[in-house]
Each structure stands twice: as C-alpha cells, then as structure tokens.
C-alpha cells in the first residue's frame, strides 16, 4: 500500500495538507447547514485571526512608531501619544465615557481633513478623463474613428443619465424622470456586466480549492495527463 503510506499524514508536509483539507471541508460544511464542526472551526478561525493581528498590527506598530522613537532615538515628545490614545479605553465607563470622544473627535476630524486630498486624487482625474471624449471628428483630433465617436457619445449619454438618477432634492418629473429611468437601466447593464465578469474569478477560486483537494490530498492527476 504505497499510496496509503504516502496519503496518510505521517510527515510534516502531509500533515500540513491534512490540516488544510480539514479546514476546507469544515468551512464547506456550512453549505449544508450550520453545524458543530463549522462552529468549532469558526471560533478557532476568529481566535487565530485575532491573535495573529496583535503581532503585525499591535506590537509592531507600537514598537516602530512609539517605543523606538522614544527609547532608542530619544524623541521624547512621542511619550504623550499613547496616554492620549488611551482615552479611547474609557469607552466602557458610564461616567468617563465622554472622554473617549475626544480621541474619536480627533479621528473623525483627521478623516474629514484627509478627504480633500482623496477627493482630488480619486475623482478629479476621473472627471478629466471623461472630458477626453470628443463627440465629432474634427482636425483637432485627427486619430479619431467613427467607432470611437459612437462610443464617446454613448459614454456621455450614459454618464449624464445615471447622474440624473442620483439626484435627490427635487421631484423627478416629465423628461427628467424619463432620463432617470434610462439612467437606472444603464446602471443595470453595468451591474450585470460586473456580475458576469466576477463569476470567472470566483469559479477560479473554487477550482483552485478543488484542485488542492484532488491533487495535493487525494493525489489524483488533474487534466487526464
């Protein structure tokens, strides 16, 4: 029974495969119904993930941005940051709870202030690239073909009608309403396209997992080759 000998988790490499397979099957058991095995792995998963984060996201950050600057480089002003951040920990106290809001206010203010750059970087170049879509052939744009013109006109029409649908502060009536309905239909085309395009990536994930089960665990050659 050479196959069995190779199949069983008798060395570390095989053991790793067996653990991976066990995890996979336990998670897949959720597809049948929620059950004790899934529950066991779910709790283990969350425990492991929570424990893991403490290394790179807790200790590493505190060491790099707080301990090292103070104790090793000697920049003492950093000393105040952690006690200030610790105001957050008053959150569970009824009497002192409001203190944590000072830190929360800092975070909210910072994310609001940062949004100006994000808005500029993320949306203005998009606005600009929308403008580079000429609607007719002219000497100014010699490389343009009629196919591109049609695409450009479509692009602008769809953009404007979807934008119309997403207005809120007035009652959409008459022609505006009709444009908004068209906008919603165009939106559905976009959503359908994204759905169809994502299916492939998700199937590839599952195929990868099943390949792992077949090839790494059961040691069956895939593709009949």
């Amino acid at each position, binding site marked *: 029974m050479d196959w069995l000998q190779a199949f069983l988790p008798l060395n570390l490499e095989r053991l790793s495969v067996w653990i991976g397979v066990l995890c996979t099957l336990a998670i897949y058991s959720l597809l049948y119904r929620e059950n004790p095995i899934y529950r066991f792995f779910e709790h283990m998963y969350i425990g492991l993930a929570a424990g893991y984060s403490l290394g790179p996201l807790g200790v590493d*950050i505190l060491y790099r941005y707080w301990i090292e600057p103070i104790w090793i480089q000697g920049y003492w002003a950093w000393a105040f940051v952690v006690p200030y951040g610790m105001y957050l920990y008053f959150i569970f106290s009824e009497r002192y709870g409001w203190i944590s809001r000072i830190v929360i206010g800092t975070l909210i203010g*910072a994310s609001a*202030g940062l949004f100006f750059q994000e808005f500029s970087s993320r949306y203005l170049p998009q606005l600009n690239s929308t403008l580079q879509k000429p609607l007719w052939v002219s000497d100014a744009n010699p490389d343009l073909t009629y196919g591109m013109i049609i695409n450009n006109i479509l692009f602008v029409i769809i953009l404007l009608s979807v934008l119309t649908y997403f207005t809120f502060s007035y009652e959409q009536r008459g022609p505006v309403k009709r444009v908004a309905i068209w906008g919603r239909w165009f939106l559905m085309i976009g959503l359908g396209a994204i759905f169809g395009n994502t299916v492939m990536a998700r199937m590839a*994930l*599952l195929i990868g997992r099943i390949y792992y089960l077949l090839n790494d665990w059961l040691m069956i050659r895939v593709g009949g080759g």
Partner: protein
Amino acid sequence: MGMITNLMAQQTIWRLPEESRALFATLIVAGAFVLILGLIPVLQTLPPRGRRAIIVTVTFLAGLFFAAEFFLPVDWTAIFPKDDPKRNFLTPAIQPAQNVLQIIGALALGLGTFGLVRLHLRNAVQKRPQWGYSIVLLVSFVVMATLSILNTLAEKEIVERGPVLERAFSILFDYTLVQLDAAMFSLIAFYIFSAAYRAFRIRSVEASILMFTAMLVMIGVVPLGAQISPALPTIANWVLAQLNAPAQRAIEFGVGIGGLAMAIRLWLSLERGVT
C-alpha cells in the same frame, strides 16, 4: 525629508541625551501618563457644553491640519529661494501625524481584542449556552497571539527565532489560517451560483437587463465563448468597457460629492452624527 531630520537632530531640545537615554525615556513616559491621565479629573469638572466644545475644537483642529497641508501653496521659492518647492511648512508633519493615527489604531485594536476576549471569557465563566466554543476561541487566541508577538519581536531581533517558534507559527499561520482564508473565499463561488439562479428572472425590465448582460459577459469572457462565436468576447469587452464604465463613473462622482459634503459636515461638527 533628510533636511528635516537633520534639522530635528540638531535641535537637541527635542531629543534626550544619549547617556542613560532609556532611563530618561522611561521617566518621561511615566510623567506623560501621569500628566495626561491626571487631566481627566479636571476635564470631568466641565459642564456638558464645555465638554462638547472641547470635542468640537479637537475635531476641527485635527481636520484643519490635514486640510491646510493640502490647500496651502507649496511653492514659496519666490519669497524663500532655498525652500523645497514641493512642500509647505506643514508637509514634514504629515508623516508623524499619520504615525499618531497608526498608534491610535493599534490601541483601538487592543480595545477590540479586549471586547472580543471579554465576551468569550464571560461566556465561558458563566457557562452560557455553547460556552465550549468560546474556550476554543480563547485557546486559539492565546496560542496564536503569543506566537505572533514572538514572531514580530523575532523580526526585530529582540528575541531569538528558534525552530520551535518557526515550526509552530508556520503550522498555525500558513497551514491553518491561510487555508481557512482560501476556503472561506472560495465559498463565494457556490453563493454566486445560487444567487444568480434565484435572482436572474425575467420579472421586470430591470431584472431582465441585469440577467441578459450578466449572461452575455459570463459566456463572453471564457474560452468557450470565443469558440461559439469570435464576436462574443468582443461584445463582452465592449459592454464592460463602454457601457459599464460610464455608469460606474457616474456613481463614483455621486459618491465622491456625497463623501465631500459629509467630510465638511463632520469637520465643522454640523451634524449630530456619532459624536
């Protein structure tokens, strides 16, 4: 950046002396704790309006810093010829400010982890229903936290990375956690199937449009589509690039503007949202 750090290095007032630096650092940190936490009884004497004023001010100042850094001109060479024309006087402070936010984030992680552990400890101690699973969670948490922290310290060469640590970490992280990630991620393939089967029906104009585009793209992007008709991949790509892109962009514009308005309201504490 180099110039700034040099400047900072020269200003010894911001740096502790090299001699017995560890001792001074410990003292200063202890002092900072006493000072900042000692402020609490003082803050506590404030009436509700004063408390609100403090929160509003802090929010505004934090926002002002990042906003000012972004909006202020960077090119001052007309007045100060030696200035770097790519930054203004606030730019050097951006990285430290980001580090402060990172530190607060790390402390929040502590808070979140505390909440998680407290819930499951209570479950276990009070023997609430299903408390066994809470034990599973706590045990895997403690083991993994120990290994992960040791691993991080080993990366910084503070502790030795022995073969036991390496082996154990690899079993729990690479062989278990990563496998669980992959399994959970691939679950979506099943769900995408059942969702499509259930939702894609010719019920209304909208639902039909959604269904037909999804099917068209689905068949167009796989090799089989090209076998059926060479036009299919072209059409699918055209739908993705020419019909999907403008709809997506319109939504992006709306989201950007909505976010901007929200940011302004939050910055100026104009809405009674979460604080």
